């Protein structure tokens, strides 16, 4: 099967280089995840044609829309795409209905027909009664739906969503996310979603691609990425502690000279991941069972869900900080505060190890 979107994106801008390969099938939703400045928006703009690629090639629905080698660069209006922009960019001088009808209209559809279709789309996203309103008069959640309806109105082969939920407040966020998920499931083309929110990405996308500094650092299903992060950024995103080292039998030797004890033997370069909740803290060095025990100093404490997240800033053995999650009563019992010296312990059986 030929992918709906096939793109090799090379963009150079000053010191920044984006080098990204994307393949998205029909009906598939892929989330492009990364920190600010990683090149997510640049990738989206390049796919939309708002930015020229300096190398590579973009094929949408079997049609080449950009090819740096043969200097093909189709303008945005010549590409079968739909874009939902971050702050929606609904045209303030047009009604909601005319915003949605805009695409079909400028593509040559009869005005009456374009409006009729727009009305149907508004009905589908559940805001049929807002057609006559101006964008300034509707709520953020409603504007999001209008933006989605407007982008879908031209029957694009590739739908691009730029941080589609970032502008919403917490409550609307959940609601709209569920709706967007439903609409994306109905959409037959390829969808690329740009976001920095790992939860949005996991809920909405079939597959995640994580980029940092313009390069792919990890990809896979949301579950794969969440369980086996491969960079510090991803680990922090999914809330895991991550160390790297090389396996020697039941131990992983860390670059700092320390070691992690494992339940199973491993070899080669590996990642070591463990949940903050698997870390226990002690004021005095614990003894007994095969635990990994590291001395450190608390850098920060903050409430996290029902527990307290403790960041242990200096763990010389790991050459990295470690997150622990403990109960508020444990914090009180141990009299923990920023600056306290503690021992962090992790059971070998709580540690996940996978090849680098």
């Amino acid at each position, binding site marked *: 099967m030929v992918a709906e979107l096939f793109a090799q994106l090379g963009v150079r801008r000053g010191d920044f280089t984006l080098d990204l390969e994307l393949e998205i099938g029909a009906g598939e939703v892929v989330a492009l995840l990364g920190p600010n400045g990683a090149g997510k928006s640049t990738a989206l703009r390049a796919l*939309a*044609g*708002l930015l020229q690629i300096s190398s590579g090639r973009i094929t949408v629905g079997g049609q080449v829309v950009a090819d740096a080698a043969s200097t093909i660069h189709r*303008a*945005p*209006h010549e*590409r079968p*795409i*739909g*874009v939902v*922009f971050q702050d929606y*960019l*609904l*045209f*303030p*001088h047009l009604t909601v209905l005319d915003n949605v009808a*805009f*695409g079909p209209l*400028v*593509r040559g559809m009869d005005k009456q027909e374009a409006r009729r279709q727009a009305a149907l789309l508004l009905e589908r996203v559940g805001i049929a009664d807002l057609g006559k309103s101006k*964008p*300034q008069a509707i709520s953020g959640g409603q504007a999001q739906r209008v933006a989605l309806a*407007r*982008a879908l*109105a*031209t029957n694009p082969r590739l739908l691009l969503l730029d941080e589609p939920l970032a502008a919403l407040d917490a409550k609307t966020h959940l609601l709209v996310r569920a709706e967007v998920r439903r609409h994306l499931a109905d959409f037959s083309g390829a969808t690329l979603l740009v976001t920095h929110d790992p939860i949005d990405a996991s809920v909405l996308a079939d597959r995640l691609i994580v980029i940092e500094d313009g390069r792919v650092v990890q990809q896979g299903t949301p579950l794969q990425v969440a369980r086996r992060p491969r960079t510090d950024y991803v680990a922090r995103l999914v809330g895991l502690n991550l160390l790297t080292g090389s396996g020697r039998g039941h131990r992983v030797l860390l670059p700092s000279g320390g070691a992690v004890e494992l339940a199973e033997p491993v070899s080669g370069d590996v990642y070591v991941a463990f949940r903050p909740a698997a870390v226990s803290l002690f004021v005095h060095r614990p003894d007994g069972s095969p635990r990994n025990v590291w001395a450190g100093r608390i850098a920060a404490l903050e409430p996290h869900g029902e527990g307290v997240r403790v960041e242990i800033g200096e763990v010389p053995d790991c050459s990295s900080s470690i997150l622990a999650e403990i109960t508020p009563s444990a914090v009180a019992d141990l009299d923990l505060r920023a600056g306290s010296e503690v021992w962090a312990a992790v059971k070998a059986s709580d540690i996940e190890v996978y090849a680098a």
Partner: protein
Amino acid sequence: MPSPDAEPTLADAKPATTRAPANRAPDNRVNNRPWQSGIPLLLAAPAGLALLFLILPLVGLLVRAPWTDAAAVLAGPGALQALKLSVITATISMIIVLIIGVPLAWVLARPGLRGASLLRALITIPLVLPPVVGGVALFTVLGRAGLLGRPLYRLTGFAFPFTPYAVILAQVFVALPFLVLSVEGALRASDRRYEEAASTLGARPVTVFRRITLPLIGPGIAAGAVLAWARALGEFGATITFAGNFPGTTRTMPLEVYLALETDPGSALLLSVLLLGVSVAVLALLRERWVSRW
């Protein structure tokens, strides 16, 4: 060179922001900035002085005008003829300015245009140039013996000077920068991403300009057009040098006022009031029609 935004004459042309406001403007009747309630004297005094300086001459005009002679002066041959010529030429000039000025502003506001600041400086010249010099300059190009005027005269027997067309050319010359800078300011302040959004929806560049850009900078265009019209209506120096002073063909209101001042100051006052009234009325009308629609 000051930036066009800082040009005091363009204060009126500040474009209404085209970013969609999240909420309607806050209720101004409620003073929700109590720390700004008092105006310090250091600012209040010069501000009041400025206001007085602007308003007093107008009051003087109204007070000193010989109202009893009004009927006679207005019924006289010169006044209405000059007024009609002024309004018609100023309106035509405004339309020409719109047709050629808006595209120029668009080009000027394009991001990454090379030589934009030089271009902008050139466009600003007629603003700071004494209008009489502008008239002389027009003469050298479009006069009967001018660079373009001579071949034109040889080919067609037509020459611009001393015709209403010359009046219009002079007005366009002095009014164009007002519109260009005003519209360029509106374009710069507008969110160009709306244009990107439109293009991703399939709109060709011309369609984007017509359906998105123009409506979004509508208030800026309207403000620029009003300024241009007012400038054209008041044009004196370039008109009298380039178009001359012939009743019915090139004698516009300002020329009529100037002429009357030499012979009959009272009638000059009345004509001035008339011109003032027409300007204010048109301004109010345009505001009603376009500017406040947003």
